[in-house]
Every structure is written in structure tokens, then in C-alpha cells.
């Protein structure tokens, strides 16, 4: 039995086309950057002998690369990385500018109060937090700010590693070249954790994916899912 969708009876989540394009561009860019970054990392690991499994990285078949590039896929990975960076920067800029200008950030991602984050985190971990389409709880708001800040740090630390001479002031801000590499790695790890949580929650509340793909999803107000 279907009722007519109305804000009084339904929770509605809407994403403008611009946001959806920026979101999926960002998703693709981050996957390219992490996959190729792992392959580049593998050529000279920072942490002991730890290397990422080849299947999880981006850079092509190592055997084929040995013939074409005389390396195990580093040239390909670097090309992915330095192509993906433009996609990442462009989509990030698009997303941030839209969020700031449209008022989306102010309306939906603020305020961020520690007390509320704590309350909602406890509720979520005890499966007592209801998810309402179109509304972000305090934990979500904090996480979105964290990941947006994280991507910014990835771009800046990436620039610091890419241009330690031309942008030596930036590299200095990150504590020098070797430290900037470690920062780049650690923040990447944080973004990976975000992705795991983000995708897990989408799997629990699939309608959010419908909204991010088609622009709109609605749910009767009495059908709240308990989502962690």
C-alpha cells in the first residue's frame, strides 16, 4: 500500500545533480588515488616490509609491466596517481564550493557539538539510533567534516611530497619531506576507515544510495530503521 509522498508523512532525502556528480567523481578519484598510492608505496614501503597485496592495488599486471615499463607497475601507478589528482581536486572543489554557497553545509552539517556526537555515538553503538532520511545525526555530521578535512590534508600533503622544492614552505609545514609522506599515508588510512563505515551504513540504509544515484528517496515516517 502506497501513500502519496509528502514531507508531512515522509522523510525525504534529495541531492541536487551537482552534488551527485561531485560525489561520484570524488568516489572514483579516491579509489584511483588509494589503489595507485598503494602500488607506489609498495616500491619503497614506509613501515618495515609491509606491502599491500597486488590485487588490491592499481597499476596493471606486474609481469606485463616488467616488459612495457621495466618496473612492477610503478609507472602505471604514478600515471594513475597524477591523473587522479586532477579529478580529486576538481570534484573536491566542486563539492566544497557547492556546499558552502548553497548553504547545504550550514543547514545539514552544522552544528557539530561534542556532547551530541557522544550521545549519538553511544546510541549508534547500542543500535538505538534511528536513521531518518534527509537528516544527519551528530556522528554523521562529525564524520563528514572529518573526511572533508581529511581529503584536504591529502591534497596538501600530496602537494608537499610532489613539490618539496617549489612548495618547500608547504613541505616545511608538514615537518619535512619524509614526515609529509607519513602524514599522507596515515590520513589515507583514516579515509579508508571512513569508507568502510560509510559503505556499511549505506548497505544498512540502501535508500540513501537511491538518493545519491537518482537524486531523491522517500520513506514513510513510521518506518524508521534502527541503524548503527
Amino acid at each position, binding site marked *: 500500500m502506497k501513500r502519496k509522498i509528502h514531507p508531512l508523512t515522509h522523510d525525504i532525502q534529495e541531492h541536487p545533480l551537482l552534488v551527485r556528480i561531485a560525489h561520484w567523481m570524488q568516489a572514483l578519484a579516491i579509489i584511483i588515488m588509494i589503489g595507485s598510492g598503494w602500488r607506489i608505496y609498495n*616500491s619503497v614501503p614506509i613501515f618495515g616490509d609491509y606491502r599491500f597485496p597486488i590485487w588490491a592495488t592499481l597499476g596493471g599486471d606486474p609481469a606485463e609491466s616488467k616488459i*612495457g615499463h621495466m618496473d612492477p607497475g610503478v609507472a602505471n601507478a604514478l600515471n594513475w596517481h597524477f591523473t587522479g589528482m*586532477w579529478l580529486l581536486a576538481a570534484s573536491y572543489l566542486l563539492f566544497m564550493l557547492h556546499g558552502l554557497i548553497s548553504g547545504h553545509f550550514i543547514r545539514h552539517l552544522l552544528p557539530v557539538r561534542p556532547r551530541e556526537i557522544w550521545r549519538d555515538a553511544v546510541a549508534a553503538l547500542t543500535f538505538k539510533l534511528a536513521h531518518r532520511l534527509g537528516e544527519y545525526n551528530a556522528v554523521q555530521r562529525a564524520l563528514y567534516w572529518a573526511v572533508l578535512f581529511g581529503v584536504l590534508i591529502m591534497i596538501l600533503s600530496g602537494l608537499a*611530497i610532489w613539490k618539496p622544492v*617549489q612548495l618547500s614552505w608547504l613541505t616545511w609545514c608538514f615537518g619535512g619531506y619524509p614526515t609529509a609522506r607519513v602524514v599522507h599515508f596515515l590520513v589515507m588510512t583514516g579515509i579508508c576507515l571512513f569508507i568502510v563505515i560509510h559503505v556499511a551504513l549505506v548497505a544498512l540504509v*540502501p535508500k540513501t544510495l537511491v538518493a545519491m544515484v537518482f537524486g531523491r528517496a522517500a520513506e514513510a515516517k513510521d518506518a524508521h530503521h534502527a541503524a548503527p
Partner: protein
Amino acid sequence: MPRPEGWKVPDVDRRALVKSGLSLGALTLLTGCDISDNDVVQDMFAKVSRWNSFVQSELFSGTRLAPEYPESMAVKNFRYNAWYHWQLAPVISAADYRLELAGLIDVKTPWTVRQLYALPQQSQVTRHVCVEGWSMIGKWTGTPLRVFLERVGADLTAKYVGFACADGYYESIDMATALHPQTIMAFQLSDETLPAEYGFPFKIRIPTKLGFKQPKFVTAIYVTNRNPGGFWVDRGYNWFSGI
């Protein structure tokens, strides 16, 4: 927030779930499947790489210097790096060696090691950055490439300076970088004449570029307006590779 009445199995939108599964699958495919060596992808890489070289050349400043470090930070046992074992590095006899000059250069008379080592020299303690991510601070001593190019009457308005090496390696750099005050023909590493595997009789030390742009055992220098490419550049690495 209102608490749901009791725990119910969520009414999962099956179509959406399939879709989410598909998109995740697509993402895994992207990383798992080898599209890197696909011709279209390689073609895109080449185009983006040319664009990135252009951006980097715009970002490059002929007067901005690479940070210099106190001498105490210079590593004594500098890392050996090449695609072959260090014992296979070419051993050059100083008596037989001649540096050949070609292209847009007025005086193409070959140079001996003794003549090269008599050139005015300067030292730098700078960071060497490898494309793979490792880096090391070292002390290099030698002649600014600019001084040498001026002395042999090179056309300084030409676009590229190319290098050929005793081990079959070859490289090329933009003229702006060749004329940068810290770009030197390094005769010494850590105050000692360059050992064979580090590039005797000299290597090109460029603290504004990645390590692979800095050829060792240089046997020929030429000035040209056609981009000569480079050993790793022709294998997919970015040509400008500035840092």
C-alpha cells in the same frame, strides 16, 4: 531522536541493494582488473603526463633554490640506485674518457676529465628525492651546468639539454632547469671524487628534479629544440619530473 518500536528486520529495498552490490563490484573491478595497460588508458596517461609537464614547468622558478641542509646532515654512504647491480656499473678510464658535445653548441671540442675538473666548483648539501619515494641528503661538488654551457657557447635559448651515458642511459631536461644555479656537473660526492658506480667522471645533480632525471657517467651533452625523452620517460615516467 525517536526510538523505533522494537527491533524489526529492516524493509530492505532489494533493487537498491542489488544496485549497491553492482556499484561496489564495479569499483573492485576497476582495481582488480588490468585496464592499466589498455591502449586507450596508456594514451590518456601520455596526454595527462604532457599536461603535467607543462604545469610543472610553469610552477618552476629559475631563481627559487632547493633547501640546503647543514653538512652534518649529509649521508656518507649514499644509496646506490640503478636497474642493474652496482658491480655492473661502467668503469671509465680517466685517460681515455672524452665528453662529446653536439647539437646547438659553438665549440664542440671534446673535454678530458682533467679539463672538466679544472672548472670552477661549488658545493651543495641538498635532498635527493627518488620517484619511488625514498629520499636522502647528500653533499655534491661540481660546476654549475650553466657555466659549462656558456663556456662552450651553447644556444641558451634552445629548449632542451640532452645527455648520453656510458651505461646506455639517456636523459633530457628543459633549458630553464639546466640554467638553474643549483644544477651542477657533480664531480664529487661527500668530498670524494665520484666513485665508479655513482657516475665517474661526473653526474648531473639537479636538486629541483627527481633522481632519475640526473644521469651518471655522462659521455655526451647536446643542446636541441626537439625533446630527446629519456630512459624512464620513454617507459612511461613523467618527463619534467620537477620537485
